[in-house]
């Protein structure tokens, strides 16, 4: 048995009473044994100190690492809250957006057809139109055997102004099918879109805008807000 084993047994209290007494006696009498034992105890204290120091160092490292993580967490949290907030606002805005204002908040107003197109065979139709007597214009149109380009346009606008959007679209489509250029093509494109909006057919209205000729002054007048509203309404129409 090594000397160190005796020391361990003594320090761990594993010696018999008799061996313990003998060992303590040798410590008292033998300076070399005592010196060895003191050194041994110091070494054990050093090992225990080092062991605990390593534990504290590891715990410190873990704590600092976790602290860094928790520092990152609020940044992620704030980002999530901001994104969620923006999404909520968008959903709220989209939910509250309806087509009512799209017809009243036109980017530009209707361009009056004065001095455009052929002379009206029934001059009264233009006069009635300018007096907002749309029903009178429609009556002239419906009784006309061969309405010219201008009367058809005035009738289309009169149907639109009396909220008869289906009829307005029907006349615009007939004009498109003729495949002949008209003095009122720009207005036809624009009011076809507006008529679809009047019928709450936003996806169709969006298609008309997308197809619209870039030279059309009405197209340039659509602002981002107006377009965004139509796109949201078209999306809502598709989804629900």
């Amino acid at each position, binding site marked *: 048995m090594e000397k160190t084993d005796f020391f361990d047994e003594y320090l761990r209290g594993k010696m018999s009473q008799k061996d313990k007494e003998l060992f303590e006696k040798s410590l008292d009498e033998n300076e070399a044994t005592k010196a060895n034992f*003191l050194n*041994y105890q110091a070494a054990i204290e050093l*090992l225990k*100190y080092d*062991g605990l120091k390593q534990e*504290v160092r590891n715990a*410190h490292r873990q*704590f600092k690492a976790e602290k860094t993580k928790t520092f990152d967490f609020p940044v992620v949290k704030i980002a999530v809250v901001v994104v969620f907030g923006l999404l909520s606002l968008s959903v709220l805005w989209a939910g509250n957006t309806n087509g009512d204002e799209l017809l009243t908040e036109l980017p530009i107003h209707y361009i009056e057809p004065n001095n455009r197109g052929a002379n009206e065979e029934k001059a009264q139709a233009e006069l009635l139109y300018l007096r907002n007597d749309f029903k009178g214009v429609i009556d002239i149109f419906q009784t006309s055997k061969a309405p010219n380009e201008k009367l058809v346009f005035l009738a289309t606008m009169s149907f639109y102004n009396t909220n008869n959007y289906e009829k307005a679209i029907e006349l615009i489509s007939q004009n498109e099918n003729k495949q002949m250029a008209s003095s009122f093509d720009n207005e036809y494109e624009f009011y076809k879109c507006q008529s679809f909006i009047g019928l709450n057919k936003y996806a169709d209205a969006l298609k008309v805008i997308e197809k619209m000729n870039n030279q059309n002054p009405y197209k340039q007048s659509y602002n981002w807000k107006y377009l965004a509203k139509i796109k949201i309404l078209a999306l809502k129409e598709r989804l629900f």
Partner: protein
Amino acid sequence: MALFTLNRENDIIEKIKNNIEINACLKYLYKEYYGFLERMVLNNSGSKEDAEDVIQEVFLAVLQIIQNDKFKGESSLKSFLYAVAKNIWLVKIKKQKAEHKRLNIWIEENPEFDADINDQIKKNEALELISDVLGSLGTVCKDILSRFYYENLSLKEILPFTEFENEQVLRNKKSKCMKALTEKLEQKPFMRESLYKALKIF
């Protein structure tokens, strides 16, 4: 203090005393008291870096004092930590010859701890001075000795962590390692003497 916290802290003290689940106990101490101790150092002319060093020394000393059965729960763990931090920081300040302008912020409480705490601080200073001998010991030796003397494992329990054939071979290796360590201590007589003095072993 809430009963739950009190019970938890009694449990922590008991575990530290028996040197079990030390990492979990330290985790608790760090979580509950790091901010408190850091503020104390910062309020007494210390920097964040000072606080980091001091807090590690505080926790080390607290573990040792509890393991040496010098803290019996007469006061709360928080008061005890406060007392240890105060003493360690005062020693550091004196060493740094820093101005003591703001030291009166420390509240004198539990002065009965101060003697034990200062004893532990002196022991740790002496141990730290001589601790480089462990670095020159070699990884295998340090691992065996640490498991045997710090973790208090038996040779049978240590054997699976090593490449030794049997317990007897491991026992011989452990004895050789311990002999090497004590010889290294003998090579530093002055430091060894001050260590004996601090450890009060004569």
